[in-house]
């Protein structure tokens, strides 16, 4: 295998194979991520969507071994990044990858920034560590990064403390920090969820521009299907720890194959899209998915979605469906997928 190539030889930058992650709970070990596989090509954007507890954040954290072990334990799988299995690297080797070649931004910019260091000091840390820059070079780089992420007066803001910045500005600082060493992969976990919609639009635009300029790949974890539609090329839909659908973004939205994906899309009200028949009175109902997400460790037999699924039949409770090609580039884990529309 040539360095930098993925095992499947398709030129993926990141390739995750059969990742399984377990959590220690009072009642024993529960599998929170179960056999997750996907790949991200250089410069591509993969969206990982799902509701709380579906395992999307834990998947992201586990790639760089950032989840606290214990209680988290990677039970199986391979994470090939630039040709090496990250799960087999020593802590020291992994530190040279994190923040240098693969960086991460989180939802809560306040809790991910250290309150006792200035913005400049925090950006400089990685630059000095990974690129061996001097103090003044690192400071220069920090100012440059703040400028690139659109922070006004970067020469002054470099000495600001995190608490002096708004939520949107803090998220820009997080991006500046993550991108300072020019990583080839950015893992962004709900990067705009805590932000207001006009600020979210600014950050998503910024991310898209920086990604294009740098040819950087992005793995975007989100619950917001609108964000996915606007930002991603390929989408992985997770439910109860498993990938239930994996498809190019257009195919997924045009004709979802898994009933869960279809249900999520149907339950969304559309903006300005429909004429209401009764503008004065009570409004129409939405097409909700019935029931709720089952608790980990209390998953039903067979397909975890079957109790909420209108297409479920007898075999769905007996045979766990595997992720397989249904049509075009679309994979789904379902015995009775939604027909193409």
């Amino acid at each position, binding site marked *: 295998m040539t360095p930098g190539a993925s095992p499947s030889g398709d030129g993926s930058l990141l390739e995750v194979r059969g990742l399984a992650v377990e959590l220690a709970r009072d009642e024993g070990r529960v599998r929170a991520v179960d056999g997750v596989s996907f790949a991200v090509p250089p410069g591509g954007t993969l969206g990982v969507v799902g*509701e*709380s507890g579906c395992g999307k954040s834990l998947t992201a954290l586990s790639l760089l071994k950032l989840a606290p072990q214990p209680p988290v334990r990677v039970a199986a799988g391979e994470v090939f990044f630039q040709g090496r299995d990250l799960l087999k690297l020593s802590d020291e080797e992994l530190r040279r990858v994190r923040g240098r070649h693969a960086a991460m931004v989180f939802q809560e910019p306040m809790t991910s920034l250290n309150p006792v260091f200035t913005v400049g000091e925090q950006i400089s840390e990685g630059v000095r560590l990974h690129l061996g820059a001097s103090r003044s070079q690192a400071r220069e780089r920090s100012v440059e990064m703040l400028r690139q992420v659109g922070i006004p007066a970067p020469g002054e803001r470099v000495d600001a403390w995190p608490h002096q910045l*708004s939520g*949107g*500005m803090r998220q820009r600082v997080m991006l500046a920090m993550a991108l300072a060493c020019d990583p080839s992969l950015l893992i962004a976990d709900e990067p705009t969820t805590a932000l*207001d*919609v*006009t*600020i*979210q*639009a*600014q950050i*998503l*635009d910024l991310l898209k521009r920086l990604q294009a300029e740098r040819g950087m790949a992005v793995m975007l974890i989100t*619950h*917001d*299907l*609108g*964000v*996915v*539609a*606007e*930002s991603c090329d390929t989408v992985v839909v997770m439910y109860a720890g498993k990938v239930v659908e994996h498809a190019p*973004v*257009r195919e997924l*939205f*045009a004709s979802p194959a898994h009933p869960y994906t279809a*249900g*999520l*899309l149907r*339950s*969304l*009200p*559309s*903006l*300005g899209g429909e*004429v*209401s028949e009764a*503008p*004065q*009175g*009570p*409004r*129409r*109902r*939405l*097409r*909700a*998915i*019935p029931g*709720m*997400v089952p608790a980990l460790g209390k998953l039903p037999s067979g397909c975890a979605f079957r109790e*909420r699924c209108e297409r479920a039949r007898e075999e769905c409770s007996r045979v766990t469906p595997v992720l397989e090609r249904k049509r075009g580039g679309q994979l789904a884990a379902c015995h009775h997928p939604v027909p193409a529309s």
Partner: protein
Amino acid sequence: MSAEPLLQAKDVQVHFPGRGGWLGRVRGAVKAVDGVTFDVFRGETLGVVGESGCGKSTLGRALLRLVPPTAGSIHFDGQDVTGLSQRRLRPLRRRMQLVFQDPYASLNPRMTVRDILGEPFDIHGLARGPGEREREVAALLDAMGLPREALGRYPHEFSGGQRQRLGIARAIALRPDLVVADEPISALDVSIQAQIVNLLVDLQRERGLTYVFIAHDLNIVEHVSTRVAVMYLGRIVELAPSAPLYRRPRHPYTQALLASVPVPDPERARTRLLVPGEPPSPLAPPPGCTFHPRCPHAMERCRRESPPLYPLGSGHFAACFLAEGESQQSSTAPRSGGADGVLAQSPSSG
């Protein structure tokens, strides 16, 4: 919907002491709500949208007299409730209720569902004996789609969606006329949000409820609302029936807000209009129109004068000088929100 307003807010202001600097000394006032005027009609849903810090939650609490308004007046069912004592408010409390965002924080963790839902009946002395109380509570569970077994359980035993059902059940227990719902679904998962929205819609239909629905999610607000008020920095910048507001927004802020919402359709061309900058601090709002520093259409006048809410016909109001030409000052019908909206927000010179 009758033309008679259930709730009338006139020039409502809520100011908080603004603290900052050395030891958090009081430095002026934060005008969380800065002169808001509107009517809420029986049976309608008035949506209130805006970004964090725009004052929408404070407004919702002021409407229910949960925070005292600094100025202005609030009439509920024809009665001026602005200065009523807590004692005199109590009989009215039964008729106006609040649904909170976080159903976990708003339910007492040490009380069973039976007591959480029975408490309103106890407080207002509305159940004759434990038998009737039990029947009322059970009927509430049925209406919420929750099993009767829930009666003896505690809030932590429920999922987020179920807890929000309990929060709604408690709010509607005493058959109120008005429910203010403050971000009732934003803490919930996508697949659960639609269930709760449907529950609210069904309850409105069955019980003739009037809603003030406060949220930052523009899609949901459009879906549930008869009319929508858009807030920016403590003021209403646009107020209109739902469909025209979303189809043809007149205020540049509303336009920016709508254009910023990510559309769950990769085929749809992105016409995203990026507004630069961030909302200014409510401690030091800019002079004139508070949106002018971010507005692509700002004129010299916007820096000096604050635009009133111009009536544009058919119940559409916008606080923008660009809409002044279309203004129909004289032809405002009383059911369209009131010409008071204009008088109450007279231009102030800066």
